[in-house]
């Protein structure tokens, strides 16, 4: 008899807040079956097939880099770069005037520009996406403009920004804005257009008022699409900021790369590449986590 192992207490009332994850089903032990691999063996197995390959890949990458640096002496190897990075990150927030600031300031300035440009783009792009997706007429009006402007390289907008704002900072924010708005507009609009008719029929049968249709049906249905758009937009924004800052100058990772190129400090350029990569990865992962939160 193993019924006692299956019986779980039935909740009479649903909890006020839904449980984040359903409780894991209790493992059933059946007599007569051989025991599975032990906990230690299973984690060893997992490590061999999931933990090992990424480490192996990184090790190969390092090896290739080392060989390349031996071949070409102007390229610093991993050890040299690491030593430079340790020195650099020992004091990330020093400030010796506008052209010589710690790596921490550079990262924060770039992030702030991306944050502002991206935030403004979200503020404009997401509502625009909702309108374009909900009203076919406006969607068709916007279609030629979007398809014309979207393929334009973001940096082509920089002179317009400099012309209008007459300052480098707002101009690079403007470039971030214009490059990150398209994924949000298009994904939100596609999400709205793809809301299944069934859900809208539910709203019609219930005669939900328009505000409730939005909060209870349209918004939750579109949310995953919207977050995809946000994720793509952040990715583009982070790609573009380095290039924009190279052109505009000021404090920021892009300017720093250019500055160190002028100093012929290649180790710092390599560090900058890693920093840009790691920050981009973290941004991406944060949004993946956010997206998982709203999955259904």
């Amino acid at each position: 008899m193993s019924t006692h192992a299956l019986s779980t207490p039935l909740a009479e009332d649903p909890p006020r807040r839904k449980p984040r994850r359903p409780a894991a089903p209790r493992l059933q032990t059946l007599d007569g079956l051989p025991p599975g691999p032990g906990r230690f063996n299973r984690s060893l197995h997992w490590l061999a097939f999931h933990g090992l390959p990424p480490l192996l890949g990184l090790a190969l990458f390092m090896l290739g880099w080392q060989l390349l640096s031996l071949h070409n002496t102007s390229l610093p190897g991993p050890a040299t770069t690491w030593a430079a990075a340790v020195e650099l990150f020992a004091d990330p927030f020093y400030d010796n005037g506008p052209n010589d600031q710690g790596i921490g300031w550079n990262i924060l300035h770039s992030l702030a520009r991306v944050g502002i440009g991206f935030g403004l783009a979200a503020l404009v792009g997401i509502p625009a996406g909702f309108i374009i997706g909900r009203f076919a007429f406006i969607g068709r009006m916007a279609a030629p403009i979007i398809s014309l402007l979207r393929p334009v390289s973001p940096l082509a907008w920089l002179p317009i920004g400099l012309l209008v704002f007459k300052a480098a900072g707002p101009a690079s924010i403007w470039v971030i804005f214009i490059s990150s708005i398209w994924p949000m507009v298009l994904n939100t609009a596609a999400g709205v257009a793809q809301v299944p008719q069934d859900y809208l029929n539910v709203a019609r049968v219930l005669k939900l008022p328009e505000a409730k249709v939005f909060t209870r049906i349209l918004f939750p249905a579109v949310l995953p699409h919207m977050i995809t758009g946000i994720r793509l937009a952040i990715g583009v924004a982070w790609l573009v900021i380095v290039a924009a800052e190279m052109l505009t100058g000021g404090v920021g990772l892009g300017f720093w790369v250019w500055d160190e190129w002028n100093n012929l400090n290649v180790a710092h350029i390599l560090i900058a590449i890693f920093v840009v990569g790691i920050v981009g990865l973290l941004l991406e992962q944060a949004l993946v986590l956010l997206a998982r939160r709203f999955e259904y």
Partner: protein
Amino acid sequence: MDKFVQLQDVGMAFDTRQGRFVALRNVNLDIREGEFLALIGHSGCGKSTVLNLIAGLLRPSAGVLLCHNREIAGPGPDRGVVFQNHSLLPWLSCYGNVYLAVERVFGAKENRSMLKQRTHDALAMVGLSHASHKRPHEISGGMKQRVGIARALAMQPKVLLLDEPFGALDALTRAHLQDELLRIVAQTRTTTVMVTHDVDEAVLLSDRIVMMTNGPAATVGEILAIGLPRPRERLALASDPAYHAARNVVMDFLYRREIRQAA
């Protein structure tokens, strides 16, 4: 009241890219209060269109539909619909899905605890109290359809409209839910219209079966009253000659008179 829902000379045409497609013509039908009516016909005969017209999700191209002597001008909570593919909102729990409907219909005149009670009662009626906190993707197809029924019934509609509610379920689950529906309808005495293509289901559940001719331009072909006494018992009916007679009439209509041309 004898004529609860009336369809008078209803016609329905859709404008498609290939031109005008006439789906229904001259549909005349009176549905009595408390009656269980099944609409049966081959696929494409417009039976779902009839249901959507009663629901108000579609407006007729010709003719008039009345519910309670008032013209059906659009969808509304007095006509609860159970959709073919359950149409539960995946971001709400079973409880949340039913509560959305309850809140909309009774929210204006009842307080929160009364609304909660109604939601619990509706879920209990379909035997899903234990799953009320689960999301639709965590429950089986049969359970989803039950939540759909609970949501429709929780609104206390004048008419319950079921669009092939059990079509996507396996035979055992379907039989189980048919029995549940028999019990629930006997209990609530809700006027019910059900679209189906399952002859046994139609005979088992309904008071009258409306047989539709083949489309395009389908209409009511024949109406068969099922005089079988209630409560009905699936196993007892299996050996009931009256059951088989009714079944044969419908079969004869579907497979001799309105035989579907091979597509």
